[in-house]
């Protein structure tokens, strides 16, 4: 009777894990170039990641 749903797992959650890994991989984005509207990469990449994170969560919400 233990369906994956009962255990609280969905394969779509892998997307969320990928998001967390990218977020925590600091060397990936600790750099100045390329800049965007004068903002170093470090700053605009993280702000972009917020939007990507929201999109990923929305995808998982509708897909699940």
């Amino acid at each position, binding site marked *: 009777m233990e369906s994956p749903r009962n255990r609280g797992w969905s394969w779509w959650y892998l997307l969320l894990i990928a998001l967390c890994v990218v977020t925590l991989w600091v060397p990936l984005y600790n750099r100045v170039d390329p800049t965007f509207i004068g903002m170093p990469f*470090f700053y605009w990449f993280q702000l972009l*990641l917020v939007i990507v994170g929201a999109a990923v969560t929305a995808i998982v919400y509708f897909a699940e």
Partner: protein
Amino acid sequence: MEQINWTALTIFVLLFGFITWLGFVSARWRRGDLNTLHEWGLGGRRFGTVVAWFLIGGDIYTAYTFVALPALAYGQGAVAFFAVPYTILIFPLLFVAFPRMWQVCHKHGYITAADFVRGRFGNRWLALAITLSGIVATMPYIALQLVGLQVVIGGMGISGTGLSGDIPLIIAFVILAAFTYSSGLRAPAAIAIVKDLLIYLTAFTAVIVIPIKLGGFAKIFAAVPAAKLLLAAPPAASTGSYGAFATLALGSALALFLYPHSMTGILSASSARAVRRNAAMLPLYSFMLGLLTLFGFFVIAAGIDKLPQFAAGFAQYKATFAAPAILLWAFPSWFVGIAFAAIGIGALVPAAIMSIASANLYTRNIHREFFNPALSGRAEAQIAKWVSLIVKFGALIFVLFLPLQYAIQLQLLGGIWIVQTFPAVIFGLYTRKLNDWALLCGWTVGTVAGTWMAAVMNFSATYPLAVGGWTFPGYAAFYTVILNLLVALVLTPVFNAMTAKPPVDETALADYVV
């Protein structure tokens, strides 16, 4: 004595008057019997996706955040941006685990995390540990909200010494206490909507107007010293600032939804689906938080800290004056009034929710559990109302009589303490396999080790963990919760062997399914 900014003050007072009125009339919103704890302390669990969004947002993104993050960026640079990955990480956790929490709490009428742990593990002492972490971690958090309020009041030129300088803070506190007492969670929910509209207005206006005034982002970032612009590359045999940045984000993210006030916000939602939708919609706040953090760099670029009219403010409030100063510098007085009111109201909303959450904890998990199990619903609500007053009064005393430094240090410790409830609360949503006494031992070890780590580092956020020639500087909350979990895992078979039969789990597998 500085000049009082009358225009800003007038608008500030008018907006405060409006939310005071709103706080009182909100008692009649989606009317329920406020003499029950379920209605007073959880708004009857009737908040839909949108109201829950404002309420949880008001919970997480507090006045202190708006003041502290620009201050950190101004003082220490890039590391302040840890708040952005931190808030990215909380949403997957909210999305995956907390709908289950909502379901099981709804089914069994739990109103706190400790209620859930009591029901799941059947151990009142483990539930008491969860309760103590919650109450002790929340108190300094409320105090910090009042500090945020104090800084904006000071920014308007009211910064007398002694008791007279504290009168505006005391007035704001009395307003807060009165509407929370009368309306319960409905008051901060209604006010959160006004607060967020004002905050969004302020943040987006400022982030467009100020960079234009300063000649664009390229010029702003050019003015930031190289050492503050990026994280320093780690030295040999160390994860350096990279590890610190990542563990600060992760440790804070694990801690956030364990705070009683976050739990109260989540449980007040009308359905598990409303919680899920919020996980996808809340990042809008994170985006704004990132923009607000940049205020610290605006201060550096504009050279505001060197201007004579702000010297007194920086002298009194140190770096925390950065956000108010940039707003004073860039905007006409009337807009400053709106912006400061946004920050001030942004202090009252979470302070109200925090005091309600602490009151719920005390009433349910200490008073009813240990002193009077026969408590009637009406008496329960009455006790909670009084406790919410006591908690807020304690926070006020804290702010008025202790140096600011203590509240900040206790807040750091608060994160370390609250994260120790993670194994019981979050893993408890998925499995009963961990033994309740083993969890309690893990909690004890984690709490003691975390407090010790913070103390030996003189209350700095990171602890340099040394393992086999490598150094891993990182947030003590993250390291100690792993230790906590290891202790619980190792001791589980030991305790299981000693006890014949585990206590009854009153929840069933089906109770968790979303």
